[in-house]
């Protein structure tokens, strides 16, 4: 299938996210999504900050969603892409959504079906980027190899996350300042940005 290049990875830089939801809208336009987006776009600290962050499936090496599925409905393909649940097997129980540390799977209650980001298999298998990363106006979502992103950005790609004691390693990555080794849940730094402090100073 992959004619020109191997399927690469998505990298998320939440600090660049401008909350425009272009990724969400683009995802809803992708073939087979039927107008539904698989991307979550969250305000990190509404009211206090304008920071937002997109969440796409990280495509874990050892995906919890797969291991907790009682119907064996979630398959991982040969490229390591964690696919949406098979419609004929999925019972819509929501175990996967509860198990996923990133909160990725979406349950369509009416269809009793879990849907999630499949890394735009229809595009990536043909050498194209997923539509979300193609359109992202700020570069908060980037599709490419680890080498490509490392050459372009000062931030360092990370694909190791800790959830309590569990260490999760993923195909997709998050871009972080070089000082951080593994990312815990919650992407907003407790530290305010310079600009936020400068506003507080001006209006004090």
């Amino acid at each position: 299938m992959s004619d020109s290049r191997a399927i690469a990875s998505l990298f998320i830089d939440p600090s660049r996210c401008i909350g425009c939801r272009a990724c969400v809208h683009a995802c809803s336009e992708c073939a087979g999504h039927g107008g539904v987006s698989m991307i979550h776009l969250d305000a990190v600290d509404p009211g206090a900050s304008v920071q937002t962050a997109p969440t796409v499936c990280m495509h874990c090496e050892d995906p919890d969603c797969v291991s907790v599925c009682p119907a064996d409905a979630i398959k991982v393909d040969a490229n390591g892409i964690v696919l949406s649940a098979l419609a004929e097997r999925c019972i819509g129980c929501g175990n996967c959504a509860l198990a996923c540390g990133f909160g990725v799977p979406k349950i369509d209650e009416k269809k009793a079906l879990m849907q999630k980001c499949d890394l735009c298999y229809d595009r990536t298998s043909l050498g194209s980027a997923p539509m979300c990363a193609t359109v992202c106006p700020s570069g908060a979502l980037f599709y490419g190899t680890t080498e490509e992103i490392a050459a372009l950005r000062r931030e360092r790609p990370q694909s190791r996350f800790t959830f309590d004691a569990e260490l999760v390693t993923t195909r997709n990555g998050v871009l972080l300042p070089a000082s951080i080794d593994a990312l815990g849940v919650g992407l907003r730094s407790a530290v305010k940005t310079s600009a936020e402090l400068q506003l507080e100073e001006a209006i004090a």
Partner: protein
Amino acid sequence: MAELPASEAELVARYGPSLAFEPPGGFAARGTPDRLVKTHCCFCGQQCGMQLAVKDERVVGVEPWEEFPFNRGKLCPKGIKRYLQSNHADRLLHPLARCDGGFEEISWNRALDVATERITAIQREHGRDAVAVLSGASLTNEKAYLMGKFARLALGTRNIDYNGRLCMVAAGSANLKAFGIDRAANPWADLLETDLILVAGSNVSECSPITTDYIWRARDRGARLIVVDPRLTPIARTADLFLPVRPGRDLALFNAILHEVIRLGGVDRAFVAAHTTGFDAVAETVRDYAPDAVAAEVGVPAHRIREAAAMWVAAPKSMLLHARGIEHHTKGVDNVLSCINLVLATGRIGIPGTGYATITGQGNGQGGREHGQRCNQLPGARDIENPVHRAEVAAVWGVPEESIPRKGATAPEIFEKIHSGEIRGLISICFNPLVSLPDSRFTREALEKLDFFMPIDFFLSETARHADLVLPGSLQEEDEGTVTSAEGRVIRIRQAVTPPSEARRDWEIICALARRLGAERHFDFDSPRAIFEELRRASRGGTADYSGITYEKIEEQMGVFWPCPSDEHPGTPRLFEKGRFYHADGRARFHAVTYRPPVDAVTGEYPVILTTGRVVSQFLSGNQTRRIGPLVEQIPEPYVEMHPRLAGELGIDDGMLVRVTSRRGFVDLVARVVATIRPDTVFIPYHWGGNRSANRLTVRAYDPVAGIPEYKVAAVRIEPIAEMAAS
């Protein structure tokens, strides 16, 4: 005469806005498109390249166009969902005439007969200038050119103006004064090479999202970012330096930065001496603007103003960008000039990675202001009062110079002249002034006074509801043409589908009307290309010279930057190289500008500053985007954004319904309490009409040079609705 023919609810039920969520037949039926048409977004001045997916001769979706160099496939929500305006249930498909209880469909023949009769009768009785034209900057260059020619030669009226009057004219006037030309000085690619980006009054993340990508790529290679804005916008959040200016105080801030730059020895004396005039008067003026002296008025600590100046001086290369935030003011032109003074004093222009640009807002905000649909302008950005310019255009048009009307009224002045009875008939296209002009009560009363109002539009806008006759025009994807992006890059809009039912391409409507009015000899066009060929000739020798641009050259080069004065010329991506400006002496002009406060002063009764602007999911007056379901869902309603400290003083909680009252009127909106705005300022997005319209509150006060309204500062008071009911 032109009060609503039916209740607002009845008109909404019939003509919308209603919401479209899916392509024709639903997503499941979309299938593989028959073809992809490479074109550009129909919304803002970034003019992102994109592909429209066409199936069974209908636009059914959007695909990124990654080869187009400006946006490389990147799109904002509006671009991704713009296809939902095609095949829309609200679409106007037939000419409509006002009747008892609403509008009735009539034939094109009848519509053109009525239009001709009414226009002719008004002009016979009240003079040619009694019929005015309002045009728009979302039109292609071809249509913008045609509208100017139509007004001057078919109607013979001096009164034509366009909605760029509400958008780009302050920047345009200032650029013309300083540089002798009105265009972004640099291509956006120069942002990638710069060391410092200063963004003043531009919420780029929401209003020109693709520019965010340029800023981040510059920062990836070490560029620093200064943002000047009363609100901590998404791009401001990560800025190296954020100057939260009080609305209306930009000029004092920029004079203070220049004061400090001079003190630091940052002036490029060689550049100033060789390539400019007037610096000494500016230096004298800014002497009074020490950061300590202006900090309180500006609302920014003095040491931050000094820091900005130090960053500017230290940066080898810099780019200054601004937009409506500093331009929508009664001193909008002077605000822009204060920025240009900083750029010129430090010689930061005309060099790769170093320069200056206004971020033009409307789709064809650049080209739409160049080819004659402005009240003071003829094609090629010529001056309608300049005898040489008039003669040049008269020769192309084949008319005596004296037959071309002189300068007419600006768009806001047209409404004043409707009130005074001087203007009795109005033809409009691509303009929704009832939502977009300040003080909408005044606009509505004007519409109600007109003897004859005829909009050409694809959807029945709030303004068009007041029509006597509505002519169904075309969407951007239904016609060929060119537009000129914020960079000054002339690009091709390609037709994807034909207008549905009896809707017609706008230029065909205008030409048909011109023929009825006896001007057939001047409107013998059979295609947009034929109009463009005449535009090329008419612009030759003007400042905005398109004479060397062809449709083919645009396609070969992925756009052509004007000026492009000959067939061999590749176009001009960067202006002012080697310090050559467009005034006769080749020098740029400094202008000494002094600060004065905004017109609508805050007082005890109206103690809070209102500023207005945009959100990412809507565009301008919303006549298109308020019909696109996924965009409406993103931000369904306007709101009033305020700081927790102000909210606390007023007893307002997040989500509470509040009344915002100005000296013009009031609106009731939900409060959004956020820590990312100055406490002395509230913000309302302006895309909505009726009783949710921010422009019920804004003030009819205009820049004396450019005529741009002061949308960015009005004085208001705010009260919780519940408390009002109790008292």
